[in-house]
């Protein structure tokens, strides 16, 4: 919502574009597409960019005529920056967003916790960046619009999605009328209230948490670093919780638990928003002027589909799962869904993998969601305790934290690292290990020179890293076999690394990965480690990679 007298897209700092429906003749002429993506929010656009990264064309539908009216998601984490980089879209984010590493938690006005998110010189990106959702959509849209492989149809509502023998038939309603279009695959990125989900007769399952939160963005000249602040039981919101985040363009996110004695309707009236926000700003010693940009209300839920795949329809982002805000994993999880579904679907469509590779999507990403649920549930139970038991324990921990540093850890928001996959067929089974790196985990990054990181060496598709001291005898044959599996395969050897970064670079890499010379790693297109072997035994690697990612001859 916006202040009285302002339109839904009347922002203090952002100019919304105005899109129109595509040309009627064009839409009637095109009968089908490989991939239809429903929803041109951040997740849908990123899915289109990921498919385009592998040369796959898509058609992107959205019923709106512009971006989201407000800025819901504002925290983008390191792994999402790495994914944006792989899709060639990270540059404007780096320029605009505010990176941060630190959070501070206050109880009754006293700081009880200052936490640093895991970070080191090995990393190319900071653990977290704050940027308004409008900018996220704008920058993704700039990349989408520039891609010849993506056709976007704004003002186009998908009203039906029926299975056909070779995929699905979408019914579309736009400003100019109705039409139908065939798609081999459908990516449903149409958000928390997904229409596709309803059309397919699917329901999210899980828990709702009590407690309502108001999020309000205000513009002000507030001098405070980009540090997440959490306030428990403050003067300005007794017994309740407040979160404060800095964003670009002097925008500050004030996120507060609805005070007792206000109904939801009252809480979102402009007068109450101004009252509550004003009280909070005085509480954090801000004396200057401020302008109200936008506000909304939300509650915490942990809801997910039982299966993110329904035939040829793949659910990505909020259409598949709704996670509590207190782990900043809504958007980030959605981007990971999009990349996971995108690279796998591209391989299937290009004939490099059997369709059953898609079976690994739901277990991997649903596993990640359940992991988010577990941590976000802990955070939500701390932020808005659902029952007397959780309330009294939370209050006990906060009260202890005033005297004991160790108790502050209960207030940690648990903004966790990417999930390590174990289910499904896209991680090679491993009875052996190669150092501290574990198949299913994101490959750690390492700075190899002033301007190059390990991640910069990875290819667009799979990457094989062979850390034998000398190139093994069968390396060429191995590369040839793997290129049959992925023509884009990149192969990096100890020799390459030593040549470019010296012996010191190579040993730094071993140290970071915990590997010994001989270790061989296979990296997936999404940066996850597919497999790891202590030595480069070509036939084992080829057999395992073919089984997991290739077309099976018996199929």
């Amino acid at each position, binding site marked *: 919502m916006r202040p009285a007298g302002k339109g839904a897209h009347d922002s203090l700092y952002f100019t919304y574009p105005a899109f129109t429906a595509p040309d009627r003749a064009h839409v009637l002429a095109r009968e089908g597409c490989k991939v239809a993506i429903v929803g041109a929010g951040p997740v849908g656009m990123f899915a289109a960019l990921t498919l385009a990264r592998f040369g796959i064309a898509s058609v992107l539908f959205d019923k709106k005529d512009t971006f989201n009216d407000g800025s819901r998601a504002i925290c983008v984490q390191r792994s999402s920056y790495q994914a944006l980089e792989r899709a060639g879209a990270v540059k404007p984010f780096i320029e605009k967003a505010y990176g941060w590493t630190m959070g501070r938690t206050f109880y009754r006005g006293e700081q009880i916790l200052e936490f640093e998110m895991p970070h080191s010189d090995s990393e190319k990106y900071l653990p977290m960046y704050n940027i308004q959702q409008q900018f996220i959509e704008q920058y993704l849209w700039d990349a989408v619009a520039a891609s010849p492989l993506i056709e976007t149809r704004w003002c186009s509502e998908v009203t039906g999605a029926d299975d056909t023998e070779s995929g699905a038939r979408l019914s579309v309603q736009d400003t100019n009328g109705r039409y139908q279009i065939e798609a081999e695959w459908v990516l449903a990125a149409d958000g928390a209230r997904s229409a596709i989900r309803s059309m397919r007769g699917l329901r999210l399952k899980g828990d709702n948490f009590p407690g309502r939160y108001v999020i309000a963005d205000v513009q002000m000249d507030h001098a405070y670093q980009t540090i997440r602040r959490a306030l428990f039981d403050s003067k300005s919101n007794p017994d309740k919780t407040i979160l404060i985040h800095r964003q670009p363009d002097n925008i500050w996110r004030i996120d507060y638990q609805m005070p007792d004695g206000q109904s939801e309707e009252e809480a979102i009236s402009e007068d109450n928003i101004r009252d509550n926000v004003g009280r909070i700003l005085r509480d954090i010693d801000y004396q200057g002027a401020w302008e109200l940009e936008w506000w909304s209300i939300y509650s915490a839920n942990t809801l997910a589909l039982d299966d993110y795949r329904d035939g040829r329809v793949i659910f990505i982002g909020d259409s598949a799962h709704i996670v509590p805000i207190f782990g900043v994993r809504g958007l980030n999880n959605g981007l990971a869904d999009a990349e996971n579904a995108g690279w796998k679907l591209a391989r299937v469509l290009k004939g490099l993998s059997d369709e059953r590779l898609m079976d690994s999507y739901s277990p991997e990403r649903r596993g990640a969601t359940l992991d988010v649920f577990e941590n976000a549930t802990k955070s939500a139970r701390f932020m808005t305790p659902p029952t007397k038991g959780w309330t009294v324990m939370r209050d006990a921990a906060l*009260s202890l934290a005033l005297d004991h540093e160790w108790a502050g850890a209960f207030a940690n928001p648990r903004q966790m690292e990417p999930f390590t996959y174990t289910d499904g067929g896209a991680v090679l089974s491993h009875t052996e290990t190669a150092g501290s790196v574990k198949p299913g985990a994101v490959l750690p990054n390492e700075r190899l020179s002033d301007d190059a990181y390990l991640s910069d060496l990875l290819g667009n598709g799979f990457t094989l890293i062979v850390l034998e001291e000398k190139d093994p005898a069968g390396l060429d044959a191995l590369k040839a076999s793997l290129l049959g599996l992925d023509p884009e395969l990149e192969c990096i050897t100890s020799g390459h690394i030593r040549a470019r970064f010296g012996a010191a670079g190579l040993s730094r890499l071993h140290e970071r990965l915990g590997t010994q010379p001989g270790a061989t790693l296979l990296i997936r297109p999404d940066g996850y480690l597919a497999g790891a072997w202590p030595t480069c035994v070509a036939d084992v690697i080829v057999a395992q990679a073919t089984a997991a990612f290739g077309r099976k001859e018996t199929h």
Partner: protein
Amino acid sequence: MALNFADLEIVYEELARTLDRLSPSEREVFLCKLSLLMARDLGDLSRVQAMIQTAQNHLETL
């Protein structure tokens, strides 16, 4: 070595007097704080868990 009875009785009496100084909601937070402090100090999760189990016995009124 476990606290002897005379010492345990001192704890009993201090707890009773402390509870009487507190409001009902303060009492619960106080007792939960104390439980976390003592559990941490005991340093033995399975022992603490066993005590949490034991303490739940016989709570229902007749």
